[in-house]
């Protein structure tokens, strides 16, 4: 992808895209506050909110105690009482203490009060592996939460999607879990249009058109899948790569349209296979497009072990490489 800045867009990586978007949100809406561990003076462990506290004040950029449950719970209360809080969980691996506040409370505020109270909350967190993060800095959490009605979840892969979806999440009147793959923070650069824009939740994006196989992915693996698809293109094999972008709601039309065209579906995700996102996609496609399928649906996913390890072989074994993805794609095309 060309990385030339034009008059109407700026080249930036994913972490810069998050930062720029948060900055604009803070500037444009007084009700916006950011809270989390080390987000203020430290400016976030990835420097996303660096210098925010200086510009917006400590009332608006809040260094919380180390208490994940109440980071989310307090943000829920803020949202119920008219603020637009953006809570940060420093690493997705730390989100478990706030599970009840996310799933039992935030997701249900509107529903249990019959619409009298709402919870316009964004919870941002970096997830995913490939950074030698081992058991507590590598996990994928989307499967734990995408099951929950009342929650929304997005996982963009490209900087332009990061900005558009984060803006949409901030505007959303319901709680949104915004997942940022930490390995893509600095690895992935792209053109990001200037100015304010949103990308609607629930819309996937076909990042590469093809005819012989549909590959659905998100996060870091979306980039690896594109790389693998490019290799296959050089072998004259045409693979279509669909970037989900949005986990809940999920784009049914994009997936079915692609599967109807290619007749073969490969789902690729870093998260564990059993009960992962791929399972729901497989079930939906089998329910709605069985007679378009010319091969069994396949999922290339993380192994069903608690985590990747710190030792390099244990990380590499867990994670899939572009070469492995290419092999899986080739096998499916040949089927």
């Amino acid at each position, binding site marked *: 992808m060309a990385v030339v800045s034009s008059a109407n867009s700026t080249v930036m990586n994913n972490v810069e895209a998050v930062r720029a978007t948060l900055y604009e949100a803070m500037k444009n809406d007084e009700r916006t506050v950011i809270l989390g561990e080390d987000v203020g003076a430290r400016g976030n462990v990835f420097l996303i909110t660096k210098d925010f506290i200086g510009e917006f004040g400590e009332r608006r950029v809040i260094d919380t105690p180390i208490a994940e449950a109440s980071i989310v719970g307090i943000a829920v209360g803020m949202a119920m009482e008219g603020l637009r809080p953006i809570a940060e969980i420093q690493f997705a691996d730390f989100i478990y203490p706030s599970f009840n506040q996310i799933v039992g409370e935030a997701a249900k505020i509107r529903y249990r009060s019959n619409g009298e109270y709402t919870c316009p909350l964004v919870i941002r967190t970096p997830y995913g592996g490939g950074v030698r993060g081992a058991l507590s800095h590598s996990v994928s959490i989307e499967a734990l939460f995408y099951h929950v009605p009342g929650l929304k979840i997005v996982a963009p892969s490209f900087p332009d999607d990061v900005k558009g979806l984060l803006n949409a999440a901030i505007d959303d009147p319901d709680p949104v879990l915004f997942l940022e793959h930490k390995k893509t923070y600095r690895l992935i650069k792209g053109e990001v249009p200037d100015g304010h824009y949103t990308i609607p939740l629930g819309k996937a994006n076909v990042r590469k058109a093809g005819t012989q196989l549909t590959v659905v992915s998100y996060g870091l693996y979306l980039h690896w899948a594109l790389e693998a698809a490019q290799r296959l293109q050089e072998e004259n094999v045409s693979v279509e790569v669909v970037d989900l972008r949005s986990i809940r709601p999920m784009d049914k039309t994009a997936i079915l349209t692609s599967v109807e065209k290619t*007749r073969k579906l490969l789902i690729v995700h870093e998260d564990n296979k059993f009960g992962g996102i791929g399972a729901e996609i497989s079930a939906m496609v089998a329910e709605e497009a069985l*007679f*378009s*399928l*010319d*091969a069994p649906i396949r999922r290339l996913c993380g192994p069903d072990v608690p985590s990747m390890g710190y030792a390099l072989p244990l990380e590499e074994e867990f994670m899939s490489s572009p070469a492995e993805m290419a092999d899986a794609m080739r096998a499916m095309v*040949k*089927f």
Partner: protein
Amino acid sequence: MATTITMPQLGETVTEGTVAQWLKSVGDSVDKYEDFVEVSTDKVNAGVPSPVTGTIRELLVKEGETVATGTPIAVIDEAGAAKTALTAAPAATAASAAAAAPVAAAPPAPAVSSPNGAPAAAGVESESALRGASPAVRRLAREHRIDIRAIKGSGSNGRVTADDVLAAVTAAPSAAVTRTSTYAQPIPGSTVTLTQARRIIAERMVESKRTAPHAWSMVEIDVTDVWSWRVREKDRFERESGYKLTLLPFFIRAVVESLAAFPLMNARFVPASGSGQPSIYVNGEVNIGIAIGLATNLVVPVIRRADKLSIKGIALAAGELIEKARKGKLGVDDLAGGTFTVNNNGANGSWASAPIINGGQAGIVTMEAVVKKVVVRDDDSLAIRRMMNSCLSLDHRVVDGYVASGFLADLKQRLERMGPQGDL
């Protein structure tokens, strides 16, 4: 003595024949000249008479099977002679028999092998091919009425893929077996297996266009008077003969007279061959073929020595041939020997057409629809006349425009002088 019967050549350009029906079984006795088999070629079904009296020893070809001319089809033991060993078939026949593999495609079991070349287990037969078919394959096969078992799979382990099914839909008929789509009732999105007749039509048309450079011309003929003549005569003619009286016999009468004036139109181009230079053979006889389009077929029965016939004679001959054609009863002799062809296109309202020359002839002329028109006469007065176009496709190896347009002008003149009364 055992006599081997071979596939006869029924028709001048026929190269193969199909055993339509065995009239005798092995062990049956047969008399000399008694039909023992029915054979079909492009348009004709013919009974083949036995050359000897005897007993059927062996039937070598299955019903429905098509073999090349000269292929042995049966063996008959001649009566009154001891059974002897089969006489050796002539070398040529054996050679042609060897060369002539049965053309009809029996649905083959797909040849299967795994990706690394090892042949799959013998168990990959038709049933497991069906069971292994993916939902997309089943749906596509259902929609296109294709038998999955008849498709060679290109997927892993010889699996029939969706692409294989789609390729079979657009491929030659031998790749798939259709079930209900026919030429008479074609089903959109399906493959129609061609009858032998239609295959031959296709081959002949290509051959004609490929070898003869077609040129084309047209005249407009005032048939008002000859039409009136026809009207006066038709009821009586129909009463007496049982056939309808159309404009066709009048036209043919004019055609044969014009052919006499322009003999090159009744010729054929003889290409160079091993034995000599290319030449033009000017036919001695004038045998007019009349093109008759049936629902699924096109036949051109021939009025032999049409130049010797009166209009009435032509009408009777044509009537008989047309009736035979409609009933599918044309014989080989009815179809043979044409030197020039007339195509009566007018019945379907055609105003002009560019017919394809019947192979081996120099031209083909049409009668288009008869239309009442306002015409301007030589004295600039207006009149309502019956006008009919006549189109000529010509083999430009044989004649140029000079001859062809001369022929057409002559034909026009003769027709315009016919009628409104006279003796048929």
